[in-house]
Protein backbone atom coordinates (compact mmCIF):
# COMPACT_ATOMS: atom_id res chain seq x y z
CA UNK A 1 0.00 0.00 0.00
CA UNK A 2 1.12 3.55 -0.61
CA UNK A 3 2.61 5.35 2.36
CA UNK A 4 1.98 8.81 3.74
CA UNK A 5 2.75 11.41 1.07
CA UNK A 6 4.01 14.90 1.82
CA UNK A 7 4.92 17.84 -0.36
CA UNK A 8 7.01 19.76 -0.90
CA UNK A 9 10.03 17.92 0.45
CA UNK A 10 12.04 21.10 0.90
CA UNK A 11 11.11 24.76 1.19
CA UNK A 12 13.17 27.87 1.76
CA UNK A 13 11.40 31.14 2.57
CA UNK A 14 12.22 34.47 4.15
CA UNK A 15 10.87 35.43 7.53
CA UNK A 16 7.40 36.99 7.48
CA UNK A 17 6.50 35.06 4.33
CA UNK A 18 3.79 32.39 4.22
CA UNK A 19 4.15 28.70 3.49
CA UNK A 20 1.87 25.69 3.20
CA UNK A 21 2.55 21.99 3.51
CA UNK A 22 0.39 19.20 2.19
CA UNK A 23 -0.13 15.68 3.51
CA UNK A 24 -2.03 12.74 2.08
CA UNK A 25 -2.38 9.93 4.63
CA UNK A 26 -2.60 6.22 3.95
CA UNK A 27 -5.95 5.42 2.36
CA UNK A 28 -8.61 4.73 4.95
CA UNK A 29 -6.68 6.17 7.88
CA UNK A 30 -9.05 8.24 9.96
CA UNK A 31 -6.50 9.89 12.25
CA UNK A 32 -3.89 12.34 11.01
CA UNK A 33 -1.09 14.06 12.93
CA UNK A 34 1.24 16.95 12.22
CA UNK A 35 4.55 17.06 14.10
CA UNK A 36 7.32 19.65 14.19
CA UNK A 37 10.86 18.29 14.50
CA UNK A 38 13.48 20.93 15.24
CA UNK A 39 17.08 19.91 14.61
CA UNK A 40 18.44 17.96 17.59
CA UNK A 41 15.01 17.41 19.11
CA UNK A 42 12.33 14.78 18.94
CA UNK A 43 9.11 15.37 17.03
CA UNK A 44 6.53 17.49 18.83
CA UNK A 45 2.84 17.09 18.11
CA UNK A 46 1.24 20.21 16.65
CA UNK A 47 -2.25 18.99 15.83
CA UNK A 48 -4.25 15.77 15.63
CA UNK A 49 -7.32 15.22 13.45
CA UNK A 50 -9.93 12.51 13.65
CA UNK A 51 -11.58 12.53 10.21
CA UNK A 52 -12.24 16.25 9.65
CA UNK A 53 -12.39 17.22 13.33
CA UNK A 54 -9.60 18.47 15.58
CA UNK A 55 -8.81 16.20 18.53
CA UNK A 56 -5.84 18.08 19.97
CA UNK A 57 -4.28 21.37 18.92
CA UNK A 58 -2.97 22.44 22.30
CA UNK A 59 0.62 22.73 21.04
CA UNK A 60 -0.22 24.60 17.84
CA UNK A 61 0.89 28.28 17.86
CA UNK A 62 -2.46 29.50 16.67
CA UNK A 63 -1.35 33.08 16.09
CA UNK A 64 0.67 31.94 13.08
CA UNK A 65 -0.08 28.27 12.41
CA UNK A 66 -3.27 26.83 11.00
CA UNK A 67 -4.27 23.41 9.72
CA UNK A 68 -7.28 21.89 8.06
CA UNK A 69 -8.56 18.55 6.90
CA UNK A 70 -11.79 19.63 5.29
CA UNK A 71 -12.87 16.37 3.68
CA UNK A 72 -11.29 14.09 6.24
CA UNK A 73 -8.62 12.86 3.85
CA UNK A 74 -5.66 15.08 2.97
CA UNK A 75 -4.53 17.95 5.13
CA UNK A 76 -2.76 21.29 4.83
CA UNK A 77 -0.60 22.99 7.44
CA UNK A 78 0.05 26.70 6.99
CA UNK A 79 2.42 29.15 8.62
CA UNK A 80 1.74 32.86 8.26
CA UNK A 81 3.94 34.76 8.91
CA UNK A 82 6.98 32.55 9.34
CA UNK A 83 9.66 33.19 11.94
CA UNK A 84 13.27 32.03 12.02
CA UNK A 85 12.44 29.58 14.81
CA UNK A 86 9.96 27.79 12.55
CA UNK A 87 12.86 26.22 10.68
CA UNK A 88 12.27 22.51 11.19
CA UNK A 89 11.08 19.33 9.55
CA UNK A 90 7.31 19.04 9.50
CA UNK A 91 6.18 15.44 9.71
CA UNK A 92 2.77 14.06 8.91
CA UNK A 93 1.60 10.72 10.30
CA UNK A 94 -1.58 8.70 10.15
CA UNK A 95 -3.25 5.75 11.87
CA UNK A 96 -6.29 3.68 10.94
CA UNK A 97 -8.14 4.66 14.11
CA UNK A 98 -7.55 6.97 17.06
CA UNK A 99 -6.65 3.95 19.22
CA UNK A 100 -4.09 2.46 16.83
CA UNK A 101 -0.66 2.08 18.39
CA UNK A 102 1.61 2.29 15.33
CA UNK A 103 1.83 5.64 13.60
CA UNK A 104 2.87 5.73 9.95
CA UNK A 105 5.03 8.72 9.09
CA UNK A 106 5.64 10.52 5.85
CA UNK A 107 9.12 11.64 4.71
CA UNK A 108 8.60 15.16 6.04
CA UNK A 109 8.99 18.68 4.68
CA UNK A 110 12.19 20.47 5.61
CA UNK A 111 11.51 24.18 6.07
CA UNK A 112 14.29 26.74 6.24
CA UNK A 113 13.35 30.29 7.20
CA UNK A 114 16.03 32.89 6.42
Amino acid at each position, binding site marked *: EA*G*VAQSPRYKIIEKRQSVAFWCNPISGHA*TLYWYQQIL*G*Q*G*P*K*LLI*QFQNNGV*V*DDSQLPKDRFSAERLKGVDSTLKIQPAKLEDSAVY*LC*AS*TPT*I*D*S*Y*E*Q*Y*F*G*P*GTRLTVT
Partner: protein
Amino acid sequence: AQSVAQPEDQVNVAEGNPLTVKCTYSVSGNPYLFWYVQYPNRGLQFLLKYITGDNLVKGSYGFEAEFNKSQTSFHLKKPSALVSDSALYFCAVRNRAGANNLFFGTGTRLTVIP
Protein backbone atom coordinates in the same frame (compact mmCIF):
# COMPACT_ATOMS: atom_id res chain seq x y z
CA ALA B 1 2.75 15.25 32.55
CA GLN B 2 4.69 12.75 30.53
CA SER B 3 8.26 12.84 29.32
CA VAL B 4 10.97 10.68 27.89
CA ALA B 5 14.71 10.94 28.42
CA GLN B 6 17.37 9.51 26.16
CA PRO B 7 20.57 10.17 28.08
CA GLU B 8 22.96 9.45 25.21
CA ASP B 9 23.08 11.64 22.12
CA GLN B 10 25.44 9.23 20.39
CA VAL B 11 26.16 5.52 20.73
CA ASN B 12 28.96 3.82 18.84
CA VAL B 13 29.25 0.06 18.62
CA ALA B 14 31.34 -2.33 16.56
CA GLU B 15 29.58 -4.50 14.01
CA GLY B 16 28.64 -7.84 15.51
CA ASN B 17 28.64 -6.55 19.08
CA PRO B 18 25.49 -6.19 21.15
CA LEU B 19 23.95 -2.73 21.29
CA THR B 20 21.83 -0.90 23.84
CA VAL B 21 20.08 2.44 23.42
CA LYS B 22 18.76 3.79 26.70
CA CYS B 23 15.39 5.34 27.49
CA THR B 24 13.69 6.34 30.72
CA TYR B 25 10.18 7.68 31.01
CA SER B 26 7.86 9.57 33.29
CA VAL B 27 4.10 9.17 32.95
CA SER B 28 1.11 8.95 35.23
CA GLY B 29 -0.71 5.66 35.00
CA ASN B 30 0.23 2.75 32.80
CA PRO B 31 2.81 3.65 30.17
CA TYR B 32 2.54 2.80 26.53
CA LEU B 33 6.11 2.86 25.21
CA PHE B 34 7.48 2.86 21.67
CA TRP B 35 10.69 2.88 19.71
CA TYR B 36 10.94 4.50 16.28
CA VAL B 37 13.92 4.67 13.91
CA GLN B 38 14.71 7.46 11.46
CA TYR B 39 16.96 6.91 8.49
CA PRO B 40 18.38 9.90 6.56
CA ASN B 41 15.79 11.70 4.42
CA ARG B 42 13.08 9.30 5.50
CA GLY B 43 10.22 9.47 7.95
CA LEU B 44 10.13 7.69 11.27
CA GLN B 45 9.52 3.96 11.18
CA PHE B 46 7.90 1.98 13.98
CA LEU B 47 10.17 -0.63 15.58
CA LEU B 48 8.29 -1.99 18.56
CA LYS B 49 5.91 -1.20 21.39
CA TYR B 50 5.11 -2.15 24.97
CA ILE B 51 1.46 -2.01 25.93
CA THR B 52 1.03 -4.75 28.54
CA GLY B 53 2.16 -8.29 29.29
CA ASP B 54 5.65 -9.68 28.84
CA ASN B 55 8.33 -7.17 29.81
CA LEU B 56 10.53 -8.22 26.89
CA VAL B 57 9.07 -7.16 23.57
CA LYS B 58 10.42 -8.07 20.15
CA GLY B 59 10.19 -5.89 17.10
CA SER B 60 11.41 -5.36 13.58
CA TYR B 61 14.92 -6.03 12.29
CA GLY B 62 15.90 -8.18 15.30
CA PHE B 63 15.45 -5.41 17.85
CA GLU B 64 13.95 -5.97 21.27
CA ALA B 65 13.28 -3.82 24.31
CA GLU B 66 12.86 -4.52 28.00
CA PHE B 67 10.27 -2.73 30.06
CA ASN B 68 11.41 -2.20 33.66
CA LYS B 69 8.72 -0.61 35.77
CA SER B 70 10.83 -0.16 38.91
CA GLN B 71 13.52 1.69 36.98
CA THR B 72 11.01 3.38 34.62
CA SER B 73 13.16 2.31 31.69
CA PHE B 74 12.58 0.90 28.23
CA HIS B 75 16.01 0.21 26.74
CA LEU B 76 16.35 -0.89 23.12
CA LYS B 77 18.66 -3.83 22.47
CA LYS B 78 19.99 -6.00 19.70
CA PRO B 79 22.29 -9.00 20.19
CA SER B 80 24.45 -8.35 17.13
CA ALA B 81 24.67 -4.94 15.48
CA LEU B 82 24.75 -4.43 11.71
CA VAL B 83 26.21 -1.47 9.85
CA SER B 84 22.73 -0.94 8.37
CA ASP B 85 21.39 -0.33 11.90
CA SER B 86 23.14 3.05 11.90
CA ALA B 87 20.35 5.61 12.27
CA LEU B 88 18.59 7.95 14.69
CA TYR B 89 16.48 6.18 17.31
CA PHE B 90 13.60 7.76 19.21
CA CYS B 91 11.86 6.52 22.31
CA ALA B 92 8.28 7.70 22.79
CA VAL B 93 5.54 7.45 25.40
CA ARG B 94 1.81 7.69 24.96
CA ASN B 95 -0.07 9.46 27.72
CA ARG B 96 -3.23 7.40 28.14
CA ALA B 97 -5.49 5.04 26.35
CA GLY B 98 -7.71 6.79 23.84
CA ALA B 99 -5.41 9.77 23.36
CA ASN B 100 -2.84 8.77 20.82
CA ASN B 101 -0.43 11.62 21.50
CA LEU B 102 3.16 10.50 21.33
CA PHE B 103 5.80 12.33 23.35
CA PHE B 104 9.24 11.73 21.91
CA GLY B 105 12.69 11.81 23.42
CA THR B 106 15.48 13.83 21.82
CA GLY B 107 16.87 10.85 19.96
CA THR B 108 20.08 8.80 20.04
CA ARG B 109 22.28 8.51 17.00
CA LEU B 110 23.57 4.97 16.65
CA THR B 111 26.69 4.39 14.60
CA VAL B 112 27.77 0.82 13.91
CA ILE B 113 31.42 0.68 12.99
CA PRO B 114 32.48 -1.95 10.44
